[in-house]
């Protein structure tokens, strides 16, 4: 059962196809402070593979991925 995480910012990326979800999260993560969490909501199934790839390459951390509601929710922590 996923833990309830508190996001510092919520970003709605619903309906956006590749490459927009990763382009947007890469911009949005820089609008919060290091250590803060962005919750990104997407409907693009490709982002399930792309967000972890993006996070690994850019050195950010995905705390949790939640698909319970039919949408995909990523909790991304800014590490740098």
């Amino acid at each position: 059962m996923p833990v309830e995480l508190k996001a510092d910012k919520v970003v709605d990326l619903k309906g956006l196809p590749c490459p927009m979800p990763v382009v947007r999260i890469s911009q949005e993560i820089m609008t919060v402070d290091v250590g803060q969490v962005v919750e990104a909501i997407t409907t693009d199934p490709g982002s399930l593979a792309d967000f972890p790839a993006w996070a690994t390459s850019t050195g950010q951390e995905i705390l949790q991925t939640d698909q319970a509601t039919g949408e995909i929710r990523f909790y991304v922590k800014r590490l740098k």
Partner: protein
Amino acid sequence: MGTEQAVMDQPKQAEAMLPGVENKISIVVFSGDLDKLLASLIIATGAVAMGMKVSLFFTFWGTAALRDARKSVKGKNLISRMFGFMLPNGARKVKLSKMNMGGMGTAMMKMLMKKKNVASLEEMLTLAGQLGVEICICEMSMSLMGFKREEMIDYPHMSVCGVASFLAEAKTSRVQLFI
């Protein structure tokens, strides 16, 4: 902490293994086809998201996609004018590499893209400009086809260059593609 640090050190380690290689991608955009141009721009914008510096080298058929349909240049000779007439006048006019079917296939694809919320080639070019993607247009291709710098789109990071500029960029890039 341990794993976080390891992840953050990855790019540094890769650079240490390959001296002179930076976190960059260089793409030769040779094709003037809508599908391949779109792929180039998707990779380019995605690469910016991945923290990479991106250079696109437009050459041969690719150069026609950078023409601005609203601009026209005087003083061209007959052959240049013919080329200008025959080649697509900008990103809106490029066709699919397959299933164009006299323009019907391309029109259908554009309709589908709109329906699925996929950005058009013009929108992708605008986005690339906002993200700082650099575009170099091959000087020789432009002169072969009779294109002038003045008839190209207003793009914030555009220059005219040759093969040496591409190679200098490519040899220090981690990823090089030819599309």
